[in-house]
């Protein structure tokens, strides 16, 4: 089994001092992510203004587009800004996997029960 408590290549946060050149590369990446996040937000706002909510398939597609774009943004923030992407794989999994298990279940149960509740309200209104 892979040992993850050993410090290899000075990667431990307290020891991780970057040189000027490394700093330039990291800043370049930060600015790139900034542009990506701003562009995604602009697209979201534009779509929000342009499209009206309705019962059509188009709106369902737009709704899912919003959710996918949001998850993209979240991914960039967590992996790049919070640099979870640079941490050990085990820490990454320990943070992300339990969260997704809980949240996906909660989303499933809340929407299912919410719609059932809606059905009963309509039936006994």
């Amino acid at each position, binding site marked *: 089994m892979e*040992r*993850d*408590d*050993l*410090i*290899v290549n000075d*990667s*431990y*946060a*307290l*020891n991780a*001092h*970057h*040189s000027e050149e490394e*700093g330039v590369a*990291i*800043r370049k990446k*930060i600015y790139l992510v*900034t542009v990506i*996040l*701003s562009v995604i*937000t602009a697209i*979201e*706002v534009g*779509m*929000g*203004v342009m499209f*009206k*909510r309705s019962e059509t398939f188009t709106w369902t597609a737009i*709704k899912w587009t*919003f959710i996918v*774009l*949001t998850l993209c*943004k*979240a991914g960039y*923030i*967590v992996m790049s*800004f*919070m640099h*979870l992407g640079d*941490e*050990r794989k085990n*820490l990454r999994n*320990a*943070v992300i996997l*339990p*969260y997704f298990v*809980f*949240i996906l279940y*909660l*989303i499933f149960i*809340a929407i299912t*029960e*919410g*719609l059932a*509740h*809606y059905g009963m*309200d*309509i039936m006994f*209104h």
Partner: protein
Amino acid sequence: MSGEAKAAISKDVLWGGGRSPFSVSYGKMMMWYFLVSDALTFGGLLIAYAFWRASAVDPWPIGEQAFRALPGLEGEYPLAYVALMTFILIVSSVTMVLAVEAGHRNDRSSVLKWMGLTIVGGIFFLSSQAWEWSHFIHGGGGFFNLAKEVTITAPNGEDMTLQAGERVYMDHHFGHLMEMHLQDPLGVPLSEEGGHVVLTELGDHPHEAHLHGLKLNKYIEDETLVEGDAMMTLWNARSENFGFGAPIPGLGADWGGINHSEYATQQGYSNFFFFITGFHGFHVFSGVIINIVVFFLVLNRVMERRKHYEMVEKVGLYWHFVDLVWVFVFTFFYLI
């Protein structure tokens, strides 16, 4: 265990048990675990909102119709203000990550510069949110109920029959003076001459509000602006029952209290709005405070004595998390 001696571990980075799990410091790992639990709290709140919305029978307000005001301007700018708030928060997240990067290079003056800008961004965001809350509490002009059934010609040319009790919404400026007129009819007189409805606020700087249009189904689907003769038909069919702003217990009591607020058709919407944005705003507020504390630690050269800027990194994690939550609040409250 063959891997035991793979690398020399310096004593000052080991935890109490003589190891460094995940090869991160104890503080950083606990910050991550705290953020996971906090994310579950926010996830739970947003999912409760989803439950409420999925089970709602009455129409649900539409984000770009509920949020289209800009400070000091009349007219409609859907999502413009919240887009600005989102951008401010993203930029403050960028300045934070630049502060962390400067910390890794032991560049104290850059850390101070970027952290300072982050604090400014956070304060900007909080002020924007204060304005948005205030706008939501005071309402977009209020409404009155119809006293009797009326039939009007809708803007699309079709006849439209409205039941007694139906809500008719006023615009922001007119509604504001109407609210004052109801409290003080002499100080803010109402005149209706030649089919022209004017409210005048007397005083040192008298000003007027004209009735230009009334809205049906404000904030929800099929929003309709009614003008001209049809508008006057609605105006003349008004009852004594007016409602203004968000339901703040105690404040709306003059007009029948909580059930008569502008947003009472979907009480759940404003409840969740204030709770979730308030809880997020509290996180931003505490983030600004922690940022200020760490700013002064850096200023006093504490990090230089410790020989690392990990404290900046930890407060950075918290600050990015606040941005992360806003990304979801933005999508689920304003867009979908």
